[in-house]
């Protein structure tokens, strides 16, 4: 059983350890979120 809500939360917890003000880091987080969304769909 894979809980994607938990995975998203853990991913965001992990990335919060890196400088959120860094535009490149922000862009990479956004890329990952979009890839996950493209796989999941929005409805």
């Amino acid at each position, binding site marked *: 059983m894979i809980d*994607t809500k*938990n995975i998203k939360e853990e991913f965001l917890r992990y990335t919060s350890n890196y400088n959120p003000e860094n535009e490149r880091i922000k*862009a*990479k987080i956004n890329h990952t979120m979009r890839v*996950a969304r*493209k*796989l999941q*769909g929005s409805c």
Partner: protein
Amino acid sequence: MLGNCKGLANYLNLSGDYTNLAIAIGYFHDIGRFEQIRIANTFSDKESKINHSEMSVKVLFENNYIRKFIKDSCYDQIIKLAILNHNKSSYDIGFDNLSEKEALFTKIIRDADKLDIFYTITDPNRSMESIFWYSDWDTKEINKDIIKFFETNHYIDYSQINNNADVITTYYAYIFDLYFPITLQLIKEHKYLDILTQRICNKFTSPIVHEQTKQLLEICHKYFTKK
């Protein structure tokens, strides 16, 4: 016209568990990027000498961090291989050595990643400087050998890329490195290549680069009509 709300997993008719596995790999595939930029202050694998997919696997599997995300270890091998293969040249993957499921999830993350790269490079809010690799924009032409090789083989030898004009070819080559018809369909539907061509022609001043870029677009359009 395809609906916007369906994800790639739906189009591929994956079961619930496999849909969630695909989404999980989506979250994991670049997780090594954050250590890469912390260590080397760059996302370039070449400059940092850090293969970011190997770093992603290290982050997840060293000290069993993966168990914080997924309790069950039965998907570990699929996850590892999909991540390790997501940024390889298609010629280096060796699909024959992968199980059916390992190959499927490798293909899924490669297509999803590229689909978002097309979104990124055509996003008007993203500067061209953040998309291209070099700081020098005064390039007069794309290396003709790269175009010739691309036209014949639909493939780019990355070792030949030496300036921003050459980098243009890498984005058009992605079209030939997709696995699922739906991905190509979505790229067509969003007109990503036309938008990219326009952005390139606006950024590069050389008329030769403009002509060469249109030539690359034409090669891709010919491929689209065959698909």
